């Protein structure tokens, strides 16, 4: 039996985004944003949007594929996929699901999309305002544990305690994102640089995280067109082949009341090896990394769990110069990421990974062949993926 793998079977042929707005400030409805991003991605790929026959998203995106297909007048709908749970942790999984569909003949042209207009709907960073609460949240919300930052800070606190990681490591991750955003006119934080002193002076959100350790919340939409690898060769842009994708979490990660056995982690203990195995890639071969910053502590643990450094090396490895394009050891979040470009629930990180392969990033790393994305650390399921240039096939 042939090896079961996605390696080299599908490629991203088109990328599209809308303008990114501060949360609640989009002039357009969330559904319209989704349509605009999809049209932009189709145009980039040089395809007729009516030829899109599949949709993949995550985090319970509210924009139903059947409605989108009807609105766009697509010829037929063959794949309608939602990655369960995990918030931004589903971003790479959605790409993997789309690739699986085109690789197996379930569909020929799948768009991965995510759209958010938080003025129209509730914000992520607020607690639920309900009179009563039950289930696992009944063991948390009455103690003031409600928001994503509050849900994950204790994982990072324990990790930093176990491995003597200093706050400087978190700061370096934040500074790298802000540094790259200064070269990116699309970035919400373009023209708003951040230095050590401003970071250190920023208020605590929840210890161990300050304001600049936490992602923005934005309105906007993003989309990627995934097609079979053979077809991508004849399309306008240099193809970005999917070398591997993985999703999930390790043993009992979702155990209630923070009872995940491997608690002090970003939840990639099993998912990272699965990715590297499929992609046939080693950490040392990754040219550039987009690592989802819900909070910098998630990036810290993601980088360790993906083998870029040992936990005990984190203080030395996570310094700003190591994380900058073009010449750092591990250029990180080269568009500005969730902290400083746009919080499009991490799908903008997938798009940046494609730009790095194409050579069109605003903070371009030289000769990128292997471009990696880590989605939504600390949630479950998490996911990740690796794109490669034709040279990697």
């Amino acid at each position: 039996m042939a090896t079961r793998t996605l390696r080299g079977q599908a490629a991203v042929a088109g990328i599209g985004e809308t303008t990114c707005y501060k949360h609640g400030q989009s002039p357009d409805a969330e559904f319209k944003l989704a349509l605009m991003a999809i049209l932009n991605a189709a145009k980039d790929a040089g395809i007729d949007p009516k030829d899109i026959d599949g949709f993949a998203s995550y985090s319970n995106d509210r924009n139903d594929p059947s409605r989108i297909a009807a609105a766009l007048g697509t010829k037929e709908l063959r794949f309608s996929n939602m990655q369960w749970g995990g918030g931004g942790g589903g971003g790479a999984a959605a790409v993997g699901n789309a690739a699986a569909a085109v690789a197996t003949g379930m569909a020929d042209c799948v768009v991965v999309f995510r759209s958010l207009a938080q003025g129209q709907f509730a914000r992520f960073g607020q607690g639920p305002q309900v009179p009563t609460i039950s289930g696992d949240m009944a063991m948390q919300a009455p103690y003031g544990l409600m928001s994503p930052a509050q849900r994950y800070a204790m994982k990072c606190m324990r990790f930093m305690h176990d491995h003597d990681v200093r706050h400087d490591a978190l700061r370096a991750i934040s500074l790298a994102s802000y540094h790259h955003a200064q070269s990116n006119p699309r970035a919400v934080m373009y023209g708003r640089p951040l230095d050590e002193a401003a970071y250190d002076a920023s208020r605590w959100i929840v210890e161990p995280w300050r304001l600049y350790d936490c992602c923005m919340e934005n309105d906007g939409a993003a989309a990627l067109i995934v097609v079979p690898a053979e077809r991508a060769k004849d399309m306008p842009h240099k193809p970005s082949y999917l070398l591997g994708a993985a999703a999930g979490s390790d043993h009992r990660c979702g155990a209630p009341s923070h009872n995940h056995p491997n608690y002090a982690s970003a939840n990639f203990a099993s998912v990272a090896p699965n990715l590297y195995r499929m992609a046939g890639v080693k950490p040392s071969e990754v040219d550039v990394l987009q690592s989802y910053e819900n909070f910098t502590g998630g990036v810290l643990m993601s980088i360790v769990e993906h083998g870029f450094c040992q936990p005990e090396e984190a203080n030395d490895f996570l310094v700003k110069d190591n994380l900058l394009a073009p010449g750092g050891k591990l250029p990180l979040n080269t568009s500005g990421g969730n902290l400083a470009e746009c919080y499009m629930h991490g799908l903008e990180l997938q798009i940046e990974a494609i730009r790095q392969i194409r050579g069109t990033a605003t903070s371009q790393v030289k000769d990128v062949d292997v471009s990696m994305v880590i989605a939504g650390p600390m949630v479950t399921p998490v996911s990740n993926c690796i794109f490669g240039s034709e040279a990697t096939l």
Partner: protein
Amino acid sequence: MTRYLPEGLAIPVPESDGLSQPYWDGVAAERLMVQRCQNCQTWVWGPEWICHSCHSFDLAWTEVAPKARIYSWERVWHPVHPALKGHGPYIIVLVELPGADNIRMIGNLLGDPKQDVPIGGSVEAVFEHHKSANPPHTLVQWRLA
């Protein structure tokens, strides 16, 4: 007793299927009740219908000593609920219970909200009753022992 956090946060109630009802009944009587598998003796927390080790459905609510160790913690500064606006920082702890194979529970650490929090430090439960709330309920808080 006084309450650690202001009034107005969501009040915990058992699910419609009643899974956690014995826990809430227990803490109202100042008894910390968790589940234990009657087939393989695995401790189970939070409440669940099945033993994750042997798949027995025979889980018995079992009293455990209200003593724990701090496994991790966080100090919240930014309020994300109207009831917490202007309240100031507060401490959430994740504690592990040595008497029940180190299952973990979430609560607040009583005392100065700006105190140093020792990971590994011993704590004991304090039952925080809200008898006049609707519905009445009891939270389990922790203080350094």
